[in-house]
Structures are given as C-alpha cells and as structure tokens.
C-alpha cells in the first residue's frame, strides 16, 4: 500500500520546517506527499452586505493566489527533488480540514509545524497542533 503523508503547509517558517521534515521522511520511505494548504474560514463569521455580494469573486481570487504563490512553487520543488507530491487547497478550520484531508487520502501520518503559540490566544481558542494531537485519526508529527 502506498504510504501517504499529509503535510500542513503555509508560507511561514513553521510550514517550511514541516515541509522539510516531511520531504525527508518521504525520501526515506518512498511515501507520497500531500501538501495541504488551508485558508482559515468559518461559515459563522459575519460579513457586510457588500462582502456577501463580492464573496465568490474574492474566493476565486484567494484560491488562485494561494495556488500560484504557495502550493505550486512547493510542488515544483518537490517534483524536482524526485518526490511524488500533490496539493490540496481548501477553506475551513485548519485542524478539522487537515483531518478531513488525511481521512480522504488515506494518509498514514499528518505533519505540521509548531507555531509556538502559547499564552492566552492558544488557551482560549486552542492551537492547531493541540487540536490535531487530540483529534487526529492517524499519528501526527509536530515539528518544532
């Protein structure tokens, strides 16, 4: 069975660390990488009427930008390095969406970077790493 790793990636240094770690792991095990980029989105946020009317247009623009500026360059590099990789670009709650992707692609592991959020924000809202550690259906590696 082909081994699939889901790596949560954004253009932060934490995302880069996660990607490097996952790429190394893939090289060793011959696993396929799924580079997941999640655009934070809640269906329960509040928008003005104007934002409602422009939402679809904005969404398309955001998706195109993320695809071109974030996902594609990374996939290019990974392919060049001889790794098998594909991208997943989604909207949603970051941890929940990573879990959903992992389940869909039958991943054996989720890799994310630690953003180092502690303090009050993480306590109140929870962190992606914390949620994943508690809720992920597969082993989860949090790269410091």
């Amino acid at each position, binding site marked *: 069975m082909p081994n699939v790793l889901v790596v949560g990636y954004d253009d932060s240094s934490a995302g880069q660390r996660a990607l490097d770690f996952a790429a190394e792991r893939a090289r060793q095990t011959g696993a396929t990488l799924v580079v997941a980029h999640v*655009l934070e*989105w809640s*269906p*329960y*946020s*509040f*928008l*003005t*009427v*104007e*934002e*409602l*009317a*422009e*939402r*679809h*247009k904005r*969404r*398309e623009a*955001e*998706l195109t930008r993320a695809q071109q500026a974030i996902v594609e360059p990374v996939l290019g590099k990974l392919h060049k390095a001889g790794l098998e990789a594909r991208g997943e670009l*989604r*909207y*949603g709650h970051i941890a929940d*969406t990573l879990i*959903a992707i992992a389940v869909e692609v039958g991943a054996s592991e989720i890799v994310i970077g630690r953003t180092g959020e502690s303090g009050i924000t993480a306590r109140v809202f929870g962190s992606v790493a914390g949620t994943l550690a508690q809720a992920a259906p597969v082993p989860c590696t949090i790269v410091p």
Partner: protein
Amino acid sequence: MTVTKRMAAPAAGLAAFLALAGPVAAQSLGERVDSIFAASTGWFVNIIFANLPGTNIPWIVGWLVIGAVFFTLYFGFIQFRAFGHAIALVRGVYSNPKDAGEVSHFQALATALSGTVGLGNIAGVAVAVSIGGAGATFWMILAGLLGMASKFTECTLGVKYRNEYEDGTVSGGPMYYLKKGFAERGLPLGGFMAVMFSIFCVLGALGGGNMFQANQAASQVQSVLGIPTWITGLVLSVIVFVVIVGGIKSIARVTEKVVPFMGVGYVLVSLLIIFMNADLILWAFGEIFRGAFTDSGIVGGIVGAIIQGFRRAAFSNEAGIGSAAIAHSAVRTKEPITEGFVSLLEPFIDTVVICTMTALVIIITGQLLQDAETGRYILNEAGRIATASGATGGVPITSAAFGAVFGWAPYALSLAVFLFAFSTMITWSYYGMKSWTYMFGEGRKKEMTFKVIFCVFVFIGAVSSLDAVIDFSDAALFAMAVVNIIGLYFLMPIVKRELESYLGRLQSGEIRRYQA
C-alpha cells in the same frame, strides 16, 4: 484615480452643507427641516395610508396581511413545515464542505438580520403598544408568523433571478425577479415594476433605512446623555460617509460583529427582566389576549390594536417589502429554495422573538397606565396611552421600561440603539444603492451621488420630529411592498415548482446531508 481625489468633491459638498447646518440653533433648524419635510412628503404618506372606503383601516395594512395569508395558504403553512429544515440548513447540515469559503446560509441570514433587527424592534414596538395597547403585541406576533411565508417567497425568487457577472459578483432582488421573472412567464410590465420598485426602495432606504434610524438614535442620545440631536446627526452622517464613501470597511465589519451580540444581549436582558417578574408573565399574556380581542380603551378599539400590531411588524421584519431578497441573493446555492427556507427564520427571530421581548418588558414593568377600576388604558391628550415615566414615542418608552429595572439599562440601550441604527443604515445604503444603480447604471459617479444624498438624509433624519419621519419611512417601505407583492402573486407558481421539486429530492435522498 486616487481615493482622495475621488472623495474630494462630494466630501467638500457634504462638509459645506454640514458647516451651514451645524452651528444653526438646533431647535429652529429642526423645526424648519421638519416643516419642509412634512410639507413635501405629506401627499405621498396620505396615498399610502388612505383608509379603505367606509372603514378606518389603511388599505396598505390589509394588502400586506392578505399577501402574507395568501402565501401561507398557497405554500401549505411552509413556515411551520420547513422550520426544522431551515435550522438544519443554517447549521450547515446540507452544505457541501467543498463549497467552504462561499457565503454560508448562516452568513446570509446574519447579515440580512442585522439589516432588519434595529430600531423597529426597540422603538417601533414601543410605538405600537403605546398607541395600540398590549393587544397590539398579539397582532404583531401573528403578522410575524404570517410574514415568514412572504419572506420565503421573495428570497427564493431573489436567488433564482439574480444577475451573476463575469467577475463573480452578484446583484439580486425584486427589481431583477420582477424584470426577468415576468419576462420568463411572458407577462408585460415587468421592467416598469422593477423601476417602480427601485424608486420606492431608494425612498425606503432614505426613510426607514436611514432617517428613522438616525432620528431615534439622536433622540435617545439626547434624552440620556443630553447631547443635542444635530451633533449626533452630524457624527452619524460623518461616520456613515466615511464607511460607505471612503470604503472604510473595518468600521462596518466591527459593527457587523458587534450587532449580533448586542441582539443576543438584548434578548437575554429582556428575559432576565421578564423572569424577575415571573408572577406577572401570565398576567401580561392575559393583557395581550384581552387587548387583542376586546376594547381596552385605546383609540380605534380592537381595529386600532390590529393596525398598530401589523404596521409595526411589517416595518420591523420587512416581510413582503423585498429588501431581504437583495441581501439573500448573494448566497451561491444550487437550490434557490434553500435560501427561501433560511430567510423564513428572519421574521421569526425579528418579530416573534425580539419584538415580543420588548413588548413584554414594557407591559410587565407597568409602563402603560391603566385605570385601576375599569382596567382601561388612560389616554393622554395626544390620544396615546399615558406611560408611567411620562415618556412618549419610540425609544424613550422602551428605555424607561428597562430603566425601571436596571438603572444602567438606558445607557446600554443608547449604545445598542446607536449601533443598531448604524448597521441598519449601512445595510440599507446598500439596498438603496443597488436600486439606484439598477435605474441609472453602475459607475463610480452615480454611486457617489446616491451615497452623498444618503449621508445628507442621515442628518435631516436626526433633526426632524418623529412623526413626520415615521410616517414617511413607513410610507416608503410600504410602497415597496405594493410593487413587490404584486410581483410575488404572479411569480409564486415558479416558487411552488421549485418547492415541490426540492421536497421530492429531499425525500428521495438525492439532496444529501453532509453532517448528522
């Protein structure tokens, strides 16, 4: 073109107007604006509120109620049948996760609600019970329940016939379904009715969506904090100007976020007051039923209570008026009918829940004075029910009712009134502008013209007297309903087809749930 350049000319115009208007003594200015206003809008108000021949029932109230009853029957009490499904839709049970990032049902509902939950819920209800007595509450709730069917019809059509442009933005609302829907059914005059609707919508945006809000906010701030109305008017019109002309989205966004919490807070405080007087709850409902079906001493008797209840309900939840169809049409859904289901929750939340809270608080805190022996209301010289606090008109009565229990409540209410007014204005400026551009075409200059007019009316509304403003506001909103409901009658078979097809596929499992 830079933002500054674009804003410079109209900003200078507005500043000049306000500079002229500002320093003038508030009283005389208010009176002058008021008399000009009353004189120029009186004829329009008279037509809309003309009584049915031989009765003292305004024909327009009958028009709205008959429409709502008709839609209720035609769609087989859809507001009760689809209530659970509507909540499931808002919870996202039927939303495909792949569509995340698009406007959700919840967001469309929340935004449309922030346009309707406003002063109608605070001031309008106080006006209704202070003229129509506790019994007006019963008719208001009934109108709210019936109005759910009107809202369902118009919002379904709003989504079905919206315009989607190449850049992905959408425009929808009664003007689009009147035009396209009539054409599709081979009916004449669709284009004409669309323009009529747009004219009335622009007036409604300036009236109920603007002046009424500014007026009530300014008078509340004056009575609680002692700040003259023209100052509040000036501040409000500048903030609105900054937001809708300057495109300072952050202010609007903050308001959109705060307003729902204020709404919830308002209901919670009301419930607290109601339960603190738990022994009076049964009595209050008794008063509501007694006033609804017997003569409680108000001017006009039972009919007076009915008219007040229906009139304020329509003004508050806007069912049948067509405005919400503009906001709801932004949702991207394969099934227009789902937006109809979701929208029927609006009159429920707005009128059946929030308006009833206001009415109960006013009744339970004993604001409406009754003759101890006969139980009939004591009227003041204006023919309205005398209040315990001596307050008359809109917000002051509600404020006194809350203030009777919590000393801090009038201050919190002032803030709520200000924010509700502001969010309603922002939403209505959009409704008005959509109608304006429907008539005159899209374009910066045309939009700017409307926005500047809108800001000037904020000021006019703040300094006018309540009666002239309230009459004009109601008249303009109801004029929208005249055109809109005619359209709904002709287009409702289309909605019925959608409904039957959808319900069939829901039952067969073709429309699937994505969550338990």
